[in-house]
């Protein structure tokens, strides 16, 4: 029986990882370019396109401010259309991606707006095209911020993925609800919670390490021994 639980937890974990990483990847594919565009398309900016900027801004705001659980329900027809069903881990990827993308876009937009305007000026003075400047200047300079932002969103997606479990999305959330809530298995509930905490912790630490690695604005510590 305990092997049975063990297998169920293992399968749920893999399901969760599958949902979160797929959704995170898709959200990044949409969110990063969207964020770059939002950060550079206001009037007078590199890719100036005021109308489109305003339009996308509205969409991002609307998606970002809809409570996740409502988004899941509202997206059921879309999910059915894309995946063929609205139940299960694969189906959960759709609302997770759509919730993650605007989040990532905002985070990336913020990181890019943080880049010193003097660098854009200098790049223009050097004869860079707007796209060259985005690729060779803005993205690399914003990378530490983007890495932290993507980590933040990964953590949020882990939490969301537990939520979709509640509406039949599979994964750890689903397991927690079925055993922990409906069958009063406190031990299963505890295991689910601990795994979720561990996951968040690992993602958080990995993200911070990567952000630190790509950040060249801080002088590297001169010695290994940090203690005096």
């Amino acid at each position: 029986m305990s092997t049975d639980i063990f297998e169920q937890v293992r399968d749920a974990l893999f399901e969760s990882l599958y949902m979160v990483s797929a959704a995170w990847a898709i959200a990044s594919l949409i969110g990063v370019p969207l964020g770059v565009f939002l950060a550079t398309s206001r009037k007078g900016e590199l890719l100036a396109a005021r109308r489109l900027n305003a339009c996308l801004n509205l969409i991002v705001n609307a998606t970002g401010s809809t409570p996740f659980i409502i988004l899941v329900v509202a997206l059921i027809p879309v999910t059915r259309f894309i995946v063929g069903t609205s139940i299960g881990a694969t189906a959960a990827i759709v609302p997770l991606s759509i919730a993650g993308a605007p989040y990532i876009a905002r985070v990336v937009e913020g990181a890019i707006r943080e880049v010193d305007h003097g660098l854009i000026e200098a790049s223009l003075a050097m004869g860079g095209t707007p796209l060259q400047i985005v690729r060779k200047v803005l993205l690399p300079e914003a990378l530490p911020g983007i890495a932290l932002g993507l980590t933040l969103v990964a953590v949020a997606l882990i939490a969301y993925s537990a939520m979709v479990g509640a509406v039949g999305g599979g994964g750890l959330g689903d397991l927690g609800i079925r055993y922990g809530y409906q069958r009063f298995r406190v031990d299963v509930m505890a295991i689910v919670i601990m795994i979720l905490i561990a996951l968040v912790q690992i993602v958080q630490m990995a993200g911070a390490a990567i952000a630190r690695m790509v950040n060249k604005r801080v002088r590297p510590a001169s010695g290994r021994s940090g203690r005096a």
Partner: protein
Amino acid sequence: MSAPTFPEASRRAARGARPAQMIRIEGVSRVYPATKKSAAVAALKDVDIAIGAGEIYGLIGRSGAGKSTLLRAINGLERPTAGRISVDGAGISALDGEQLRAARRKIGMIFQHFNLLSSRTTFDNVALPLEFAGLDRKAIGMRVGTLLELVGISDKRHRYPVELSGGEKQRVGIARALATEPKVLLSDEATSALDPDTTRAILALLADINRTLGVTIVLITHEMAVVKEICHRVGVMEAGQVIEEGDVYDVVSRPRTDIARSFLSALSGRELPRWLAEKLHPDRERALKAVLRLRFTGEKATEPAIARLAQKFGADVAILQAQVDEIGGRPFGSIVVAAPADEEFDAAAHAFLADYDVAVERIGYVD
């Protein structure tokens, strides 16, 4: 490495002859439109400047005078609302897109805060404009190597900006600005964030680049040392206009406008001593002594005019402050004296001093 391009032009500029024109600014105005919160600002008003090939031209003036706006108009970062700017024959203010970018590659720019990419090493920072220009890696490697050699930071090629000192960062900035072999270098207070020694080293580098590569340099500065050490000509800006312009020596030793005068004396530390400034007043009637500033220029700067003045008039001409300076090896002196406040003395002294080619300016009176 590119061979020296305009050594002849540079030498001519140094001699003060009219070299071929590199930058022409004609009737340029720039109005920043009004916003909800503030009125329109006329940052430039009908500015005309011609800068010769190989020249080092200094722009000075108070904060907000429009210096940066003018400099940024030269490479099209700023669009004039009226007028024309051409650099090496290309009408910058009329260009767009790829043509503008091509023109900008022929105009380097350096900045007060360096504007280096923190994510790139020294080498990669200098490589950036070459990547923009679409050079292949091999060509970039060779070019960057010579540039780092030129500015003297080859040993820091794999360092990130955060690991460099201010002076080193500016050297990287200069190397980057020179990467595409520009004919013009624009500098907006490039030494303002550096200490005096580093400033001198960077100025020496700029002067060297001007001499050996013949690059025309336009620079903005608030430092007298910069003007005196490397500029050939200066323009004094005030409220969006160039109010005075000429050879550095002439402008610094004999400013014609009040604004230039007060600005220059503040720059060169030739402000009146506090005790004197406090006692000065403009009322001749109740005054015992007039305070005059005498400016000596050229060979006359070394002649003992002041001694002769005292000798001839026997009057008690008291020296309150004296200073001798040098620009490009030519001396000029400034002496503040207290002299009798009567008109007779005035007239006689003026005539006498005119013989010695001394400019007299009455600053005020003391009791």
